[in-house]
């Protein structure tokens, strides 16, 4: 058990605070990774176990599992009232639960020069800093996914371990108690593995302070403003752009696994298309040897694939196999169905600045 042998090492004192007296944290995640619960447990532990005051809430919409979510924690001194109800825009500590979120512009915007960034990634500190384009501050990297896979738990408790360590003022003991309490009623057998996951996150997290060296410039936080407003939005809220969700990139919904397509084994039976919830399979119309029109599978467009693997399960010839996500696979396996990029971004608001290249056969492939 890390760093809890001293009797009263954690006073109710914040290392930094904003003008209202809050130390603010934001957990950027995708639905299903448990960032909401992690935020709750952390805030609960700091407030009930360490005597601070504060609040916790999450971004809410009708987003489903796999959509981006944010979880907010505010902590302040015990006697300060919490009155604010708005999201955390300038976190003293930002935890990114899925490194693909770094692709979304603005994830690291609004950090203070001495903020802490906790990142779930298999990268080295230097590589992670490049990926996050962090101008300065403390970077903490933990391979939370790996820990969770090894312990058969979820990565949120590993992230909590890293966050608590990186915060340098949150007492890990009440957090451990909060984790145990959250599991002991319904899933008592999960208490031990989750505490171990937490401890490993705490111990295995590596951090380093990066002074400002001009390598990356700080990005100020800017509030999202819709492209469509009262002056140009079609009356009545109609969407005159049929099927424009095709412009979205949902790769971040996958949790590390995806179906790899093997053309050489495929018999074009079509069962994958029948079972796929995300309509990822792209088919070409070809003329067969007898001069008859027929359908030939080009492959899955992984831009839309959420990694449920129903297709792997149903494929009778193992032409689709379960693979761990690696960049080289994603890009070679990607088949872009609709384009071109200008049209794709016409009503887009998720500004993934992807680059596109036209390919033969009137489709576009995302590059870089």
């Amino acid at each position, binding site marked *: 058990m890390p760093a809890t042998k001293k009797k009263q090492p954690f006073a109710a004192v914040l290392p930094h605070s904003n003008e209202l007296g809050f130390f603010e944290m934001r957990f950027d995640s995708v639905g*299903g990774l448990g960032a909401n619960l992690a935020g709750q447990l952390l805030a609960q*532990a700091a*407030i*009930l*176990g360490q005597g601070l005051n504060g*609040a*916790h*809430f999450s971004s*809410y*919409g*009708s987003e*489903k599992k*796999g*959509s981006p979510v944010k979880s907010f924690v505010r902590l302040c001194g015990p006697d300060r009232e*919490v*009155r*604010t*109800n*708005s*999201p955390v825009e300038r976190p003293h500590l930002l935890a990114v639960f899925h490194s693909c979120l770094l692709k979304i512009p603005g994830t690291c915007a609004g950090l203070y020069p001495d903020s802490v960034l906790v990142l779930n990634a298999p990268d080295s500190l230097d590589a992670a800093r490049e990926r996050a384009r962090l101008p300065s501050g403390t970077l903490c990297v933990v391979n939370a996914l790996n820990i969770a896979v090894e312990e058969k738990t979820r990565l949120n408790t590993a992230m909590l371990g890293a966050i608590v360590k990186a915060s340098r003022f949150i007492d890990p003991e*009440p957090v451990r108690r909060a984790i145990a309490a959250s599991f002991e009623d319904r899933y008592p057998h999960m208490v031990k593995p989750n505490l171990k996951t937490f401890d490993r996150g705490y111990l295995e997290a590596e951090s380093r302070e990066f002074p400002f060296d001009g390598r990356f410039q700080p990005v100020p936080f800017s509030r999202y403003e819709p*492209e469509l*407003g*009262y*002056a*140009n*939005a079609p009356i009545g*809220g109609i*969407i005159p*752009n*049929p*099927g*424009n*969700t*095709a*412009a*979205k990139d*949902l790769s971040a*919904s996958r949790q590390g696994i995806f179906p790899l397509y093997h053309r050489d084994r495929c018999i074009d*039976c*079509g*069962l994958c*298309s*029948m*079972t*796929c*919830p*995300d*309509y990822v399979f792209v*088919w070409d119309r070809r003329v067969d040897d007898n001069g008859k029109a*027929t359908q030939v599978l080009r492959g899955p*467009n992984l*831009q839309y694939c959420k990694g*449920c693997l*129903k297709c792997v*399960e149903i494929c009778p010839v193992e032409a689709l196999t379960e693979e761990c996500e690696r960049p080289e696979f994603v890009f070679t396996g990607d088949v872009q*169905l609709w384009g071109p990029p200008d049209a*794709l971004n016409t*009503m887009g*608001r998720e500004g993934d600045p992807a680059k596109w290249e036209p390919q033969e056969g009137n489709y576009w492939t995302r590059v870089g």
Partner: protein
Amino acid sequence: MVTTEAVPKTPFQVTDFKKGNEMAAVAARQINYHLMGYYPITPSTEIAEELDEMYAEGQHEIRMVPADGEHGAAGICYGAAVGGGRVLNATSANGLLFAMEQLPVQSGTRFPMVLNVVTRSVSGPLDIRGDHSDIMMALNCGWIILLARDPQAVYDMNVMAVRIGEHPEVRLPVIVAADGFFTSHQKRRVRHFKDPQVVRDFVGQPLTPVTALDPHNPVTIGPYMNDPDLINNKYQLHLAMEAAEKVIPLIFREWGSLSGRYYLPVEEYQMQDAEAALFLLNSAAETAKDAVDRLRAEGLPVGLVSPNVIRPFPAAAVRQALRATRSVLIADRADSYGAHGGNMTIEVKAALKDDPLNHTRCISRIYGLGGKDFYAEDAEKLLRLALGGAKPGQAYVAFDYFGVTPGNPELKLSRLQPALTKADTTQGVVKAAWDEKAGKVKVSVLGPRQLTSVPGRIAPGHGACPGCGIFPSLNQFLKGIEGHVVLLFQTGCGMVVTTGYPYSSHRVTYVHNLFQNGAATLSGLVEMYREKIRRGEYPHEEITFIMVSGDGGMDIGMGSLIGAALRGHPMIVLEYDNEGYMNTGNQQSYATPLGHATSTSHVGPAEGGKAFHHKDTAQIMAATHIPYVFTSVEGLGTDLVRKAAKAQWYARKGSFAYGKVLSVCPLSWRYEERTGTRVVKAAVDCCLFPVYEVENGKTTITYNPEERNKRIPVSEWLGMMGKSKHLLKPEHAQTLRDLEQEVERRWRRLKAMHDHPLL
């Protein structure tokens, strides 16, 4: 995890960390209401969920009644209230509006109860986040309306509401309104009494001067009352509101002396010498205090006025608070369209008008609609506007919106994809024709490979969860439909994940309406189409009209659906049954099978999952005697495609067709996503979900697991899912037996119908 501390002179209170909805549930548990009638709607649903979970653990005795809709929930509550007990409900937004017809019934016949309104924007377009457009609609219903500005106030107001409403001089139902998400879903440090008896002593025994449960004193409740009597009944209601104005401060004070938390009908913050003030309700008022502090630090004379009660409207206290203020900015989180100000603006202006000496300038702004965040900086801007208005002779805009954005003028709207043509979707993969000899429509379907030549009417990029069962079913169904299609989705997962503004997955015209009314809406559209053709106003281009709904929509929308079926409009209704209200977080629907665990049918020492059997919607629809009813699932080859083609054949002939597909939900059924097809097939193979069709009254089982030697015990299917595997444990043996028997009874009955053309 909870810590405790002693408070001098008052009973022990626990310091806890909870959100508004949890605090409403804690208060209800401590009060120990007799009954809660409810229907899930975001963001209020958690109150019933929390209470159901506590019930399962044996922490209270509140009878939890899941309604078929908010209108039904309000009816259940009214019925329970006339029985003379304590009654609770919780709702939001359109749920409140759907229930609203019942609200004046409750207040006009003077039966107290408590309704938590977790405020949310009213549709449409559908927005689930918090504003006050729902609660403002309730101002004229004769209910007391208390506001709860933070999770602590949610607890306090819920306890006090019982006393206020039941006061002998009041006898009125009470709404407690808290801000959706901002308060309902925000965890804060809170305190509540450790011993529920403290709360029970405070609320005391319910006073029941009238009850429908006393055969020795028969009473007529709700007579037929015209003029000249009704005005007197309403005058009594008015007097009760006047009495409430006196009673509320007394109860507030009594609770203050017990809990240490004192409330006033109108809260004033830094108003002593304020020249300019902000008038705000609930969570935004709390946020604005930070802005007041900031401007006060600059030496600016600003303050905040914020009521804790809006019915009865504390006019005298508002007048008092603003008597010397030069300018007040009233910010409404809902517009009263065309009224030159939201409802609070109108009421504050009316209150001030009664003071002939008052010269306060009233500025009105609409802010934060649809849950748009309200920052302290926003409050600061509003305060500065008020300060500007405080300067004599300064011009000001009396009424406007705050926080609207014009959009990017450079943006060019263009279509991402071309419209699908009739040829695109008529690839000849299905052929349907009447078979005179069989007395049925015969359909031939090409294999899955050829089906891929039909372009999807729903584009990829939708936001469903990984492994969602809705989309393979929709895809297969739409492969069987040729030509132009207009889709109507009732509210549910399928709707929400395909149309998050400004995106739409629908490549064909799509309409949403709330899930109690989709079938009626589509029937109206169908009749407009037919009437326009009849008048020669429309080129006769064939369109197939299809409504898509979850099983939740088959509860709340059952009346609308049956009505449309009985009228026999040419349209198709496809139900994706995922055995619960998955869009709002897995509450039980009537289609949830017996014993299954959901967020409103927990499993614990005092509760064993869903309390009654799954609804047989296909048989209900067969009883409307429409010519075609079917059930199917993905994973039975091209069965669903074939049935879609058949349904279209009947729609083309001018008839109504209905189909139901069992649709997996890995998140709420709790199984590994990849095994979805296996899970849904097991439901068919165990006969819980028989696959059949009823064509012109004749039932045909189209997939018989017994004949294929594939029949499995129900328990095998139950064991595949986290929501039901507890049923295999010995303590649930009776439930398992009941479910097995019901499945077997329905299956045998179906086989008999298959065998006998007259059944």
